[in-house]
């Protein structure tokens, strides 16, 4: 039989991991968005070298499982940091670095590549005439992007942005691999005492379900607000 008392108690343990999952998601998105946008621009304008680098970067991230990316970066970063510390005589043990810093780097690395493609396809939905029209009325390219191109591109980017965010939240469940105390790991540790793994995973499952449905609703609401201009012009 299921242990219902444990089920309810552990639900709140799993819930206590939500802030960590959200923090990692938000920080990763904030770091990845400008990088993704800039690299998407280099892809669109076919800037030599950077375009190729961005292409390989996207191909790698899309071509490898995220758990393998975590494995690689989590064994690679300490080596690099250690060399850096030794070179500059910083007396700080590498293994004392909080896993959340690794999480920020790893998930930003992954999300930036996803966002390159999201922004690239969104920007390509905006007609070239929009930029030309903006130029012809005297806007600079930066102004045209900020006031004309990006607001339109954002509307078509939102569904993909939503998918990327949901995938990112789901990916934080792999935080166990870097000992990050998020939703999954917290509930799992709780189950270690009495071997109540099934109950723990039911709790984890419910927490992610609630979290993802909330995020999806939030994006739906945002999309509705942003696409108001379409109704006005119709």
């Amino acid at each position, binding site marked *: *039989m299921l242990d219902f008392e444990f089920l309810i108690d552990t639900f709140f343990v799993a819930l206590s991991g939500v802030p960590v999952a959200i923090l990692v998601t938000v920080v990763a998105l904030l770091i990845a968005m400008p990088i993704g946008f800039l690299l998407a621009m280099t892809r669109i304008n076919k800037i030599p070298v950077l375009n190729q680098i961005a292409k390989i970067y996207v*191909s*790698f991230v*899309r*071509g*490898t*499982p*995220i*758990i*393998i*990316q975590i*494995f*690689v970066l989590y*064994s*690679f970063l300490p*080596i690099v940091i250690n*060399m850096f510390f030794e070179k500059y005589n910083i007396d700080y043990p590498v293994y004392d670095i909080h896993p959340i810093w690794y999480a920020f780097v790893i998930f930003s690395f992954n999300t930036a590549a996803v966002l390159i493609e999201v922004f690239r396809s969104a920007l390509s939905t905006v007609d070239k005439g929009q930029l030309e029209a903006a130029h012809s009325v005297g806007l600079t390219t930066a102004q045209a992007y900020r006031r004309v191109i990006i607001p339109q591109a954002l509307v078509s980017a939102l569904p993909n942005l939503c998918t990327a965010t*949901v995938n990112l939240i*789901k*990916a934080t*469940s*792999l935080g166990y691999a870097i000992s990050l105390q998020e939703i*999954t790991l917290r509930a799992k540790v709780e189950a270690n005492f009495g071997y109540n*793994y*099934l109950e723990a*995973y*039911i709790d*984890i*499952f419910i927490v*992610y*379900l609630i*979290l*993802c*449905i909330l995020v999806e609703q939030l994006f739906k609401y945002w999309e509705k607000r942003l696409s108001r201009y379409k109704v006005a012009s119709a």
Partner: protein
Amino acid sequence: MEKYFDIQYLWNAFPQLLPYLKITFLVAGIAVVFGTLLGLLLAFMKMGKSRVLQWLAHGYTTVMRCTPSIVLLFLVYYGVPFLADASLGINLQDIHTGVFVVITFSLQFAAMMSEVIRSAIQSIDKGQYEAAVSVGLTPWQAYRRIIFPQAFVIAIPNFGNGLIAVLQEGALAYTIGFIDVVGKANLIIASNFNTHALEIYIALAVIYWVISIAIEKIFEMIEKAFSKGSRSLKAS
């Protein structure tokens, strides 16, 4: 750097890892077959008239989309034996872990495929079906001869993406003790006393990267081969 990174370990990893790709492919292959069948069923539930079935199929897809693979994997791993024991009294303690891996990724792939199949079928103009029925085909014939062949071509790229996704998510199977290519990599690292993990993981990343690119290219070719016919049809 050399004491941390020894390229020799990377080269040696490939011959040890590659034989285990069979297992990775086998599991993904079975999951794709079951997942496609279940996905087909779900797609028809979504397009059918019954409100309850529609709601069920959409609910299933939403739940699957919101559940991290690792959570689903462990839910199946602990949940299926529990349910089998509680409802039927069957003891599944000794069953091979591969079965749980297959169940998990079939369930996940089905949710993906239900959307792929539904959007492919719905992208075919309704007039095609009406025209087929009007010339005397039964609804089943109309689907089999007119709708499916066209929907199939539209679904090819998304099917390829789904295949890559299921292979990649399958990398998590090692967490329940399944020895596929990732499980083997972890065994190699353990036998090296947890040193030189980076080299082994890079080898693993390269293997997955090559497979993903290969699948992408193959599906591009398949798509091209199939859409050639449709273009010549339009021209004639």
